[in-house]
């Protein structure tokens, strides 16, 4: 891979990492799949999505 190609790849990885870091600080709390309530919510949302 040439320098030009690497520049694009590194930029994409940097954006992806930045999103992940920002999300870890400002994103909502992780859904607790072990809690019954959260699991219900999660299943409901998934059903909605799959139509």
């Amino acid at each position, binding site marked *: 891979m*040439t320098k*030009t*190609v*690497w*520049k*694009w*790849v590194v*930029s*994409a*990885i940097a*954006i*992806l990492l930045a*999103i*992940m870091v920002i*999300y870890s600080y400002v*994103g*909502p709390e*992780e*859904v607790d799949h072990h809690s019954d309530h959260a699991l219900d*919510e999660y299943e409901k*949302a*998934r059903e*909605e*999505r*799959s139509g």
Partner: protein
Amino acid sequence: MLEKIENVTLSVVGMTCAACSQRVEKGLKRMNGVHEANVNVTTEKATVTFNTEETTIKQLTEKIETLGYDVRMVKADFQVTGMTCAACSNRVEKKLNRLEGVQKAAVNLALETATVEYVEGVISPSDMKDAVHKLGFGLKEKDDSSNQVDSKQKEMEVQLGKFLFAAILTFPLFWSMVTHFEFTSFIWMPDMFMNPWVQLALATPVQFIVGAQFYVGAYKALRNKSANMDVLVALGTSAAYFYSIYLGIEAMEQGIVMPDLYFETSAVIITLIVLGKWFEARAKGKTSQAIQKLLGLQVKTATVIRNNEAVTIALEEVKVGDRLLVKPGEKIPVDGVILDGHSAVDESMITGESIPVDKKSGDIVIGSTMNKHGSITMEATKVGKDTALAQIISIVENAQGSKANIQRMTDKVSGIFVPVVVVIAIMSFFVWYLFVTPGDLGAALIPTISILVIACPCALGLATPTSIMAGSGRAAEVGLLFKGGEHLENTQSIQTVVLDKTGTVTKGEPMVTDFVYEAPFEKELLLQMVSSAEFKSEHPLAHAIVNYAKEEPVQLMETEQFEAVPGHGIRAKVNGYDLLIGTRKLLDDEKVEYNKAQVKMTEFEKEGKTAMLIAVNGQYAGLVAVADTVKETSKQAITRLKKLGLEVIMLTGDNKRTAEAIAKQVGIDQVVAEVLPEEKSAVVENLQKEGKKVAMVGDGLNDAPALAVADIGMAIGTGTDVAIEAADITLMRGDLNSVADAIIMSRKTMINIKQNLFFAFVYNSLGIPIAAVGLLAPWVAGAAMAFSSVSVVLNALRLQKTKLSPNEMERSK
């Protein structure tokens, strides 16, 4: 007033489909002074014929720029020598800036350099060198690497980079989409990627950084009141992207944590289309391999003999008349004549003929061919643009850039395709929104996006030009030079092949086989007079007699009068004697009695020899028989032509008996003999009147009218320049197998074009209804669209592997 008509080929950047090329073509044609414009999306070339008094190249480039495209400029750095002050650099700079085709020139006195931005194809560095040289300065290229190849390579790297960039950011979105389905719901996925903000952050760079090229393309097209594939891609992906933002905002207001969004649709479509573009660029690069191979044949340096010393100089510095030294294993730098030495020369790179040709003093050699054995000294006769290789490159480039008739039709179709598709997409949207899923904007949008994406006419626009490029490129490799795409297209419909005899079926190098003299004339004196008279003639039979006389040997005498009687012979006065040498008709016209010769003459003719009567001072004096030998490959080639279902006719000015004897040797059943040069074209026309599509194959000056009249004219490359000029196809190999090869190549190319068009049409016409009824997910439409373009180009590339000459077929077995 006499119009100054000029032809220019400009490299146009930014065209993505046939609609773009149509727009540029129309725009150029509307300009004052432009007579003809031909734009090819595959080669990215615009060929314009214009009146220089009404428009300039600068205006043409400006027009292309206002249409939303760019003309590829080549930036080259030069070393300037001989400058001493600012006035010098100013003069050089002004001179360069004034040259037609130079966009911008800057000269740096301190560094002694000049940076010139110029329009490729209009002006070359050597033109600039000449201009600067006239001012008294020197100009030398700093870097001879091909700028164009570099820029295309760079473009490909950027496309690959963009694809990887888009792929990395799209992957999480695609992941989230995959888990939507019932059968894939078991796949684990971090919640983060379902978050609308995260999806927005991932999709935005793909939409506006990678997708910027589509927005720019669409803007340029719409500004010029037209539409292309960029419009469709920009419309489709924007609809998905902005609708997702709208849904995201709505979801937040309603407190929904994981709304149903379509960010992955736009991102996946863009990623796949960029991937398709990268594949397409790579494959397109391969279709022009033929040109790159030809360019690669050129040598960089030559050894010149100056003041009895061998000096190595750059190829561009070789001039006509220079004496060059070529050692064994070296390439012959330019076209020329051997002065000293003999060798075997491998001309396969030019003629496709694999057996090396023996060359001796006086023989012509072609530049870029390989000197195998001996060391030779040659004189340069053609340099630069005039060499055979340079002309071959120019013919192949023209053929690859020209349009076949079938392409003009598809260009028209793809030109109106985009607006029609947009209308269909809008109609589909309303049908879904009002009737199928009333009030559901998202459900109505999905089939609309799919229609916009699947209907891109890329495959349609690429179908013909890629096949023409690959086909004519492959043909050039075996020594078949088609002068235009239309000839490649028309050759397949040929029904009748008319072959000239001398030089085409036969070697065209006749030799004297018999010399009969009648008392009171003596052989030596008669031969002396006959050869002296024939020395003035250009006819191959005359050369045979002169060569025979040289071998005897006899001394030539002065010829006082000479007159060629076309098709019949010559009239001359040598040493006070009136001479007639030629056919029966010539002697009949002069009322010379030659009964004694009849029996012998008939005998010679039955053997396939050409017998010429000699009369001195109105009295029959003798007979000279000349025979031409048949080319070794002629019989095999004619069998191949017959197997292809073609009618083969031999045409000659020779008498019927000689012609029939030759025809019998090679297996030709139909012969038209005793045809005068001016009647050859009439024979072709008569065949055409019978409704036949006729190809004429010839090599001589006298074949030129027939070559021009025929549906397809094929000139043997070893023949005269006039014949090559008049013909549609040049057969670089002297071998008649090339005729069959040309027809096979044309047939295969046309089949390939039809396959591509069929695929492209079927794909678009099936894809649209499937998308309209909602059975095609937008991302699948994106993948299918990318695949369609790539598959069309890959199918065209198959032509590069076509097996042609019998030797090749034999090898492949």
